[in-house]
Every structure is written in C-alpha cells, then in structure tokens.
C-alpha cells in the first residue's frame, strides 16, 4: 500500500531532522556555557573601570576629552549587534523591532553580525558597514571596528553612537536593549559602577597620578572599547542561549511528530492486515 510507504518515508525524514537539531542543540549548549561565562565575568571588569572613571569625573571638564563631548551637530551611528547565523528563534526579529523603534530614521548603521544587514537595508536604513566576529571572539578582533567608531566620533561625523544588542538575562530570557556608547555620560558611569559590589564613599578628592589628563586619555578609550567588547559578549551569550532553546523545542516537536506518525503508520498497517484477511476469507468462502 502506497500510504504505508509514504508514512514510513516521512518518519525517516523527520527523524533525520531531529538528529540535526539535537546536534545543534548540543553544540549551542557547549558554546553557550563559555559565552555566558565570558559575559558575566566581563561585567565585573567593566563596572570596575566605570568605578575608577566615575571618581575622575571631577577633572573631566578641565581635561576636555573628546569621547565625552556633547555636540549639537552630527549624525547618529547605530551599531546593531545581531547574529551571523539564523536558527535562534525570535532573537533577531525582536532586536530588529527594537532597533527600528528606538533609533532615528536618518542614522547610519553598522552591523556586527550579518543577519540583519539586508533586512535593515530593505527597510531603507543606511547600512554603512557590516562586520562578522567569530564565536571565540577576542578584543583584538573588535579593535579595528572600535577605531572606525572612534574616528567617526572624534572628527565630528557622528555626535551619538548607539548600540542595540540582546542583553543576556538568563538562558530563557534575552532582552533587546539600546546602549549609548558615545558620548560617555556621568550618569552612565554611575549606573554601571553601581552594578558591582565595590563599596563607594563618593568622597572625591583623589590624588591623581601622573596627571588627570593622562589618566583620562588612557582610561576612557579603554572603557569605551571594553564596553563594546562587553556588549558583543552579551550578544553572543544571548545568541547561543536562544539557539539552544530554539533547537531544544525543535527536537521536541520532531519527537511528537514521530509519535503521531508512528501511530498513523500502525493504524494503516492494521487496516492493511484486516483487509488481507478479509480477502483470504472471502476467497476461501467462494471456493467452498
């Protein structure tokens, strides 16, 4: 019976798919553990940097560093940290929605991750650059990207640099978020520094060596570039978590589908046997 063979073929193909999704789930969960680890550890570092910077804020105005300058003119640069590959549930779709709503129409866009670049272009946004970073990303990989951003900000092309990314909350929850990378503001420093448990007396009057200006010119770029690294790490952790969850539910769906199909298959098989028996008995009756 053709029907029987059809069902059998479908079971086989569903089973193959489920093996692939299962494998992807395993890979994602291994990568997730690493990415999650890096993202969580990085948070302590960035908030320690913010803590030091915050204490320097009194001398910031005299030093006049360009990375904190508020300007009226210039465009907005939006960095969209999305994924290179799909199959990670609604992660990129949610990020896209957030990006469209929260960023100005006429902004320039830079994509880290290739997935959303064509979509943004189709929506009429001006995508200037698209970068890809590997899963085992190091800060060296982001250095040229940071230099592009920094140059654009310092020569006045951009007066605001926003980053949209998926903040890693936990394995099940990733929240799309917009972070203002540049200019660095005092409120931002305070907020990030308070994430850590370092006690803070806010007395001020620090002895600064060698000079406030020297300190600021080295620590501020370090802070901003590490912030970018941190946001990409968050994005990676979110990506792997979302992919693991998506693949897990895909594997479960496949298993349900196989169960249903097997039931159908057995029913069809029984019908076939009944029919055959019927034919045999009718034939013997006729011969009597």
């Amino acid at each position, binding site marked *: 019976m053709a029907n029987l063979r059809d069902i059998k073929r479908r079971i086989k193909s569903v089973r193959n798919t489920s093996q692939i999704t299962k494998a992807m789930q395993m890979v994602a969960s291994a990568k997730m553990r690493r990415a999650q680890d890096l993202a969580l550890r*990085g948070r302590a570092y960035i908030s*320690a940097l913010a*803590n030091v910077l915050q*204490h320097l804020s009194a001398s910031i105005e005299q030093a006049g560093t360009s990375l904190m300058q508020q300007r009226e003119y210039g465009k907005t640069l939006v960095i969209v940290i999305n994924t290179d590959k799909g199959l990670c549930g609604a992660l990129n779709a949610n990020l896209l929605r957030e990006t469209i709503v929260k960023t100005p129409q006429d902004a320039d866009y830079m994509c880290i991750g290739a997935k959303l670049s064509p979509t943004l272009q189709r929506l009429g946004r001006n995508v200037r650059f698209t970068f890809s970073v590997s899963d085992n990303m190091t800060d060296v990989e982001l250095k040229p990207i940071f230099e592009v951003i920094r140059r654009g900000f310092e020569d006045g092309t951009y007066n605001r640099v926003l980053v949209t990314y998926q903040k890693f909350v936990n394995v099940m929850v990733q929240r799309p978020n917009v972070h203002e990378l540049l200019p660095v503001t005092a409120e931002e420093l305070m907020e990030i520094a308070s994430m850590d448990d370092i006690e803070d007396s806010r007395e001020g009057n*620090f*002895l*600064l*060596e060698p000079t406030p200006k020297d*300190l600021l010119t080295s620590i501020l770029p370090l802070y901003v570039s590490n912030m970018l690294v941190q946001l990409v790490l968050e994005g990676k952790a979110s990506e792997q978590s979302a992919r693991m969850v998506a693949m897990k539910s895909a594997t479960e769906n496949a298993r349900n589908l196989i169960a249903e199909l097997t039931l159908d298959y057995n029913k069809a098989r029984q019908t076939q046997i009944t029919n055959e028996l019927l034919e045999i008995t009718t034939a013997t009756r006729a011969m009597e």
Partner: protein
Amino acid sequence: MPLHLKIITPLRTAAEVDALSILVPASEGQLEVLPGHTALITSVSHGELTYRTPSGTTASLFIGGGFLQVENDIALVVTDTALEADEVDPTSISAAIEQARTRLRNESSVLSREDQTRLEASIAKQLAMLEYKRRKRTH
C-alpha cells in the same frame, strides 16, 4: 584594619584578599600602599605586584598595564592580565614573542604606526612576564 585588595581582569577576578601592604609597579615608579593610604588613582605599568598577607607571608602576581584605585583601604586594580607565577607558560610566551618579532621585521611596511607600537608594547610586556617567571623560579 588590613587593606582589601581586589584585582579584576576581563576574564576573572584574579584576587580578592586582605593584605597588610601592597607593592605596585605604578607608572611613576614602584609604589607601596599601606593601610590608611590617601585616596589615589594612578596608572599601573606591567610588572610584579607583591602583597603581604595578614599571616605574614608574601604573595605576588604578574599584572599587565592598568589602573590602581585606593579608597578607604580598598585597593582596586583593574588590569588586562593578572597571572600567578605557575600560570605563566614560558614556551608559549617565547613563541608569541618570536611571532611578534617576525611580524615587525617582515611586515614593517604594511603595518600601521599604531600596530607597530602595539606589537612592541606586547613584546615588552611578554619579556617582563618571562623575567618575572625566571625570578620566581630561582627563589
């Protein structure tokens, strides 16, 4: 009241201990921090950071460049690397130095000025790391 020393790198919190005194390779020269030190922020160059634990022993770490903040007897060191002597692997460091040197020699025309200074800085840092390891072994 002893000092509280906290060393934070991007990869981990390398140390969170109480210390009686801390000797840091600050950018302006060696700097010793004792309890009751005035509030201070200074940049730190790569080198050996030594601290005395409340039990009287001394311990040390190799730290990369970064910053030191002292406030209310809390010393916070923010740095890109912090390694204990047995975490330093001389063979891989020598290989890295060799690789960086070859790049400097062969690609000096294509490398930008920034890349060159970055490579040179990383060589200097790795040499210091080797030196630190050597000193620890002879002790």
